[in-house]
């Protein structure tokens, strides 16, 4: 059982720089939480505060209801996998895994048993006698993992453990990590700035920006129900297309006016905008929510293609509107050519409206399950 709660956790470096600010988060037992955000957003800072490596400026950390805010790291019952692994170069793989257990004054045969068991779990049993320098990056990473697992911590902290690996190995380790998590069922906080990593591994994703949490939610929630412009723009590749539009009412119907098109809203889409009284909003359309039509009749707008990027399974089409690049994901066939005129419409069920000033979402989807069915 391990439940972690962060209350208003903040860290200030020097007088002005806030590494993390007002972090509130409740991690339930056995959960796999991923911190996601651009570089410098405070992921590492938060993680290090949980580990006890960084002094907390404000706020509290509770582990299973116990306040551990000012406890030294060794008494916290957490373990950590560092970005550069931090396996001790002067110890063999065996000693690296055994050292934390020796520090706990475990009996020798018990240590031996655990080391062997854990090393088999992460597939480094053959290398127990080697020194870290004699291992590849991926193997070293597994040593760090084994060391962290061996102590059976309440919380598992991982700071971009996969970022030093090549793309292929990264994907494989991702799967292995997930499998290990299923076996150990340890509560885990995983830091990354790679969103596909986050989407594929997380139970819940915590999206951060400039030291603050922007949204907490399951991968589906942050993807479909992005809380604000930042999250919508950060999650998904290629990112969401944003267009600033005017809100007007014509003949009793709500319309969105863009220099290139006029979009009439159906009731379902108009409903959340009833009480919106500003005359502009930000329309967000994901590239995969745009549809290329054969003829002009039902199209929202027509435009000439700027660039085509074939991706094998699909193709990404870029057009230019009002000086902004808008990207569309289309099936692999038919192949489009540059400068070709295409007719585009939107998937009306997936339109996202954001407040033009606060950038907050105006039309959260009510039922995610329903959206996924469609």
């Amino acid at each position, binding site marked *: 059982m391990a439940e972690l709660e962060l209350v208003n956790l903040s860290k200030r470096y020097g007088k002005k720089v806030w590494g993390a600010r007002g972090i509130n988060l409740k991690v339930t037992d056995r959960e796999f939480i991923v911190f996601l955000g651009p570089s410098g957003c405070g992921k590492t800072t938060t993680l290090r505060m949980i*580990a*006890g*490596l960084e002094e907390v400026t404000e706020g509290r950390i509770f582990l299973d209801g116990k306040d551990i805010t000012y406890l*030294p*790291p*060794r008494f*916290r019952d*957490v*373990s*950590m996998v*560092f*970005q*550069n692994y*931090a*396996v*001790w*170069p*002067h*110890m063999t793989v065996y000693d690296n895994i055994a*050292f*934390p257990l020796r*520090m*706990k004054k475990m009996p020798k045969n018990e240590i031996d048993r655990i080391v062997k068991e854990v090393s088999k779990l992460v597939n480094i049993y053959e290398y127990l006698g*080697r*020194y*870290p*320098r*004699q291992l590849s990056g991926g193997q070293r990473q597994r040593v760090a993992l084994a*060391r962290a697992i061996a*102590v059976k911590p309440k919380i598992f902290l991982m700071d971009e453990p996969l970022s030093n690996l090549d793309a292929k190995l990264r994907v494989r380790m991702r799967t292995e990590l997930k499998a290990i998590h299923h076996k150990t069922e340890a509560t885990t906080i995983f830091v990354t700035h790679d969103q596909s990593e986050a989407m594929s591994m997380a139970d819940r994703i915590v999206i951060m920006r400039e030291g603050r949490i922007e949204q907490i939610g399951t991968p589906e929630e942050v993807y479909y129900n992005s809380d604000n412009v930042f999250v919508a723009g950060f999650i998904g590749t290629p990112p969401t297309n944003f267009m600033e539009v005017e809100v007007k009412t014509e003949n009793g119907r709500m319309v969105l006016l863009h220099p290139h098109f006029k979009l009439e809203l159906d009731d379902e889409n108009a409903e959340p905008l009833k009480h919106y009284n500003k005359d502009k909003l930000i329309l967000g359309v994901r590239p995969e929510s745009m549809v290329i039509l054969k003829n002009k009749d039902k199209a929202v707008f027509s435009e000439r293609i700027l660039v085509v990027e074939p991706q094998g399974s699909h193709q990404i089409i870029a057009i230019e509107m009002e000086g902004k690049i808008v990207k569309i994901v289309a099936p692999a066939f038919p192949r489009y050519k540059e400068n070709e005129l295409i007719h585009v419409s939107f998937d009306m069920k997936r339109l996202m409206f954001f407040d033009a000033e606060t950038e907050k979402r105006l039309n959260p989807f009510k039922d995610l399950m329903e959206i996924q069915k469609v």
Partner: protein
Amino acid sequence: MNRNLILSRKWRKYVSGTLFYIVVLGIALIILIPIYFLFTISLMSDQEAYDWPIRFFPSFVNEFVLQEASTPDKGYLLSVYSHSKGIYVPLCESKDLDTIVKKAKLKTNSSIPKELLKRKIDELKDIMEKNKEDIERLRSKMTPYLEKLERLNGRISRILSEVNKYNKKLKLAERAGMKDAVQAILQKLKSLNEELGELKEEAKKVSEKITLLNQDLIPITSVKFTISKNIFENYITFFKVTNDSIPALIRSIQVALLTIAISLSIGGLAGYAFARYYFRGKNLLKLSVLFVRMFPGVSIAMPMVIILAKMGFYDKPLGLSLVYSVGQIGMTTWITASIFMGIPVELEEAAQIFGCSKWGAFFHVTLPLALPGLAASAMYAFIGSWSETAQAIILTQFNPTFPVVVYQTLVGAKGLVNLVAAGGVTMALPAIIFTLIIRRYILQMWGGVTV
């Protein structure tokens, strides 16, 4: 065109390769030659050490020749073979055998047993008795030549002095601008030089004759014998002369080890602080740590005499090592700071997460990783304090350190180079041994790769 290019590239490769090896060889020679000569000279006898050119290897035996002295009342003449000159050089003439033995030992590091010397004298007498007539004959043949040679030499020296005189006159005349006089003097010089040439020619012929006669004469008027040389004689002499040197050696080791302990513990901690913590004025402080090294050690030692005397550390190893540490700490701080900076903080943090306190992390992780560097700076401190003389002379009185003893010997020995060389090598020895011991840590490897 293309062929030329390839050729020239090939040549360039050869030239640069050769140059590289020449440079490497040169560096090796520059480092090795002085050390090699110090070492060989320390193994040479007095007589060998002053020979020129100095031989590349010290000899292990001495070849002696025993003859009767020039006049019978002077006794016997002992000569030793000089390899560089290719002749036997006389060592001493004496009737007293003890004197001969002593002198031989002093000069050649060979102790000739008195019995042997007596036997050889008998042998010599024997030979001379047997070949009495031949000796007489040869000697009587030689006497006129010797006389003639003497006369010739006398004339040559007279003429030489005359030439000198005329040369001076010539200069005066030239300055005065007397052309006729100059002409006359030149004439005179010419004839003198001709005469000199003739005389020299004649003297050469005569001495050749004498050499020829000597070749017959020497084997029947002398005995040769070979005696092994005690190659470590200089070292024994050195320790005898400096009968205080064993305790001094021990004191020196004490001082060096204390210096290491003090400078490494204080400098190491300072280095760690510089590497791991940020604080105001860090860089300034880091620079000023080196400041003390800019003063000559002697100037620090002088005022220290009073302080140490008041604290009761004067003339004690601890006092000396305290003063040495002053200079060493700065260096150690710099070296260790860069070592600790090279060790990622994450390694320590990992240790903290996995059950260590801050100190525990330092001892379990950082210290073992820093060991090679710490060993290197320990060696640096050792060598620094080991060979230091100036401060030691000031700060000790009755309990000098080893370098002081060597220095005093050097001053007292009045140029007994081989003895000084032996002292020098003795001094280097503990430093070399220490380096060999510590080498294991400096070249510390984990899994075949240095950290």
